[in-house]
């Protein structure tokens, strides 16, 4: 049982090792000649203007999308175990699951009606 999850560790370890080795070789053989203009953020060759990008100004719509995603992602976690055994559980489990999905769908329809999915 535990043996079937060991490969995950092994593959993560090996790939990380491979990547770090490649980085290392790259850092040895590559030239290193930094100067101010090369190290400035790229803005089509113009002088960078305005705030730093990491001040985090972005459209709030992305945040709403992320919240909606969490709702449905939690739903998929319940759907997977249900999908494996739903034939044994029969009609009752099927109806129950769709009541659950229905409740989530009400929230989704509300978000839709409020225009959270309109991208303007």
């Amino acid at each position, binding site marked *: 049982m535990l*043996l*079937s*999850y*060991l*490969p*995950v560790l*092994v*593959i*993560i370890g*090996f*790939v*990380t090792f491979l*990547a770090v080795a*490649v*980085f290392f*070789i*790259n*850092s040895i*053989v*590559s*030239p*290193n*000649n*930094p100067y*101010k203009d*090369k*190290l*400035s*953020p*790229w*803005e*089509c060759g113009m002088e*960078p203007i*305005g705030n*730093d*990008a*990491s001040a985090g100004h*972005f459209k709030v719509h*992305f945040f709403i*999308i*992320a919240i*909606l*995603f969490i709702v*449905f*992602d939690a739903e*998929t976690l319940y*759907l*997977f175990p249900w*999908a*494996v055994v*739903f*034939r044994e559980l*029969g009609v009752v489990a099927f109806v129950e699951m769709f009541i659950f999905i229905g409740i989530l*769908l009400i929230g*989704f329809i509300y978000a*839709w009606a409020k225009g959270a*999915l*309109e*991208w*303007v």
Partner: protein
Amino acid sequence: MPDINTLIEVALIIVKVIVVSLILFTLPIPLTWIERKVAGHIQVRLGPFRVGPHGILQPVADMIKLMFKEDIAPDKADKWLFKFAPLFAMVPAFAVYAAIPFGDKITIPIINKEVTLYISDMNVGILYILAVGGISVYGIILGGWASNSKYALLGGIRSSAQMISYEIALTFSCIGVVMTSNSLSLLDIVKLQSGTILGFIPHWNIICQPIGFAIFFIAALAEINRIPFDLPEDEGSLAAGYHVEYSAMKFSFFMLTEYLAMVTASVLTVILFFGGWNAPLFMPEIPIFWFVAKVGFFIYLFMWIRFTLPRYRYDQLMTIGWKILLPLSLLNILLTGLFLL
């Protein structure tokens, strides 16, 4: 003290992991050449032709060039995250393959030992793949944010919003397959697709899950950032998106991740909907050949789509994801359930 069989198992796992990782690590080299050749011939030109016969050494030359490039980190960047973002993107793309079966079993002729053609048959296989595959989005958003460049930040945020939006439809379309096969293990899913219906239709999931396949394929296209959904790298408005500030090997690791994601999407399409290594009608059973052929066909299909279709606008992308694919995938689950009960 663990017994000898466990030790052999562990050694076998390590060997398999190394072989699979090295194959995947070098796979983008032929794939970039094939992609550029396909692009060339679709657009009635030759594609790479100078380096080696028919340009076959072009990707090797590119790789050597990238190896010798200067590794630039912008002075305003978050140095640690900037360095780790390519790793965050790349390692999950490899880790996914711990659960993907490439075939059933083969016997190695000389030592006469039976070897399974998968690294691990997890009983939660498909859930593991979707979960780990989803981690890649961290690499992209971290790379975009740590660069401290406006294009990179926009590209990273757009990309993550796109990926999480389509991940829902992708997962829901997989649930249809799980319902028909009653298992999360990819090995079981493939085994259930052997044989035929009525003696002449292959018993592949595409037959009983056509809507599921359509949703899966469209969502996979968006998930791996391919045209017509390649908005994260929209050259016209974002320059190169989240990896605009990256150079040298860090840049190539992002590219490697994208190619691996394309291979993963093809492999998953084949395993979930096209019978894995089961041969099509009345064809001889050569498992590995059929698996590679089917995966190759889907990789070619992704390239074909890339050079045929234009790109969607961002609002269209979100409309397709949330207003069409999501309700449609729920409908698919409902229909599958009603049909099976």
